[in-house]
């Protein structure tokens, strides 16, 4: 699974993208798995109400299924314009 991080998630995790070996069935499972793996993920994902999720470039939420998905992106609410 390709995982992308933007803005302060990228900074806290220290990566903008990585390839993750996972069997997580949902985004929530993936978040739990990463958070258990290393402190920097746990810190970044501490408040998921401040985190937005896209699966295969479609905005969704933490309950979304990862079955058949190839890319997950995590980022704060957008502040363009």
């Amino acid at each position: 699974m390709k995982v992308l991080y933007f803005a302060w998630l990228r900074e806290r995790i220290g990566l903008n993208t990585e390839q993750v070996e996972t069997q997580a069935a949902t985004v929530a499972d993936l978040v739990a798995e990463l958070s258990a793996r290393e402190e920097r993920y746990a810190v970044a994902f501490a408040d998921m109400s401040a985190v937005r999720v896209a699966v295969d470039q479609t905005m969704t939420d933490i309950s979304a299924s990862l079955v058949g998905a190839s890319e997950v992106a995590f980022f704060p609410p957008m502040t363009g314009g």
Partner: protein
Amino acid sequence: MSVSVQTEDFDVGAEIAALTQDRTDIGAVVTFTGLVRDMGGAQAVSAMELEHWPGMTEQALEQIAAEASARWPLQAARIVHRYGPLLPGDQIVLVAAASPHRGAAFEAAEYMMDFLKTRAPFWKKETTPDGARWVDARDADDAAQARWDQG
């Protein structure tokens, strides 16, 4: 309908000229230009860094322009958004809508800006006297976007 995501500055006059060139059926062009302000909330801002999601950003902007074109009788819609390092006074974003009539051009430009604020994958980091900080999304921007659902 066209969008650009770029580090370079833009010229609103040249953008309007490109939209209207060789056409005599456009009656109204409305543009919105967003600039970096020297204040973010109560704090002085000395610089800004705009991060975006390459590939996804262009798609999101194209969808916003397409939605505006479907909703109003536009003859042209254009979005230019810069990324990278910017300074107070710099232009950040341009939205332009061309239509036979002024009402449609005004509404479409405002619609594109409202959706761009909440739906385009950009994140702003400001440099202040207390250090750098990521700009929070504003509830007012969500409300501005939501009002189009009722129309």
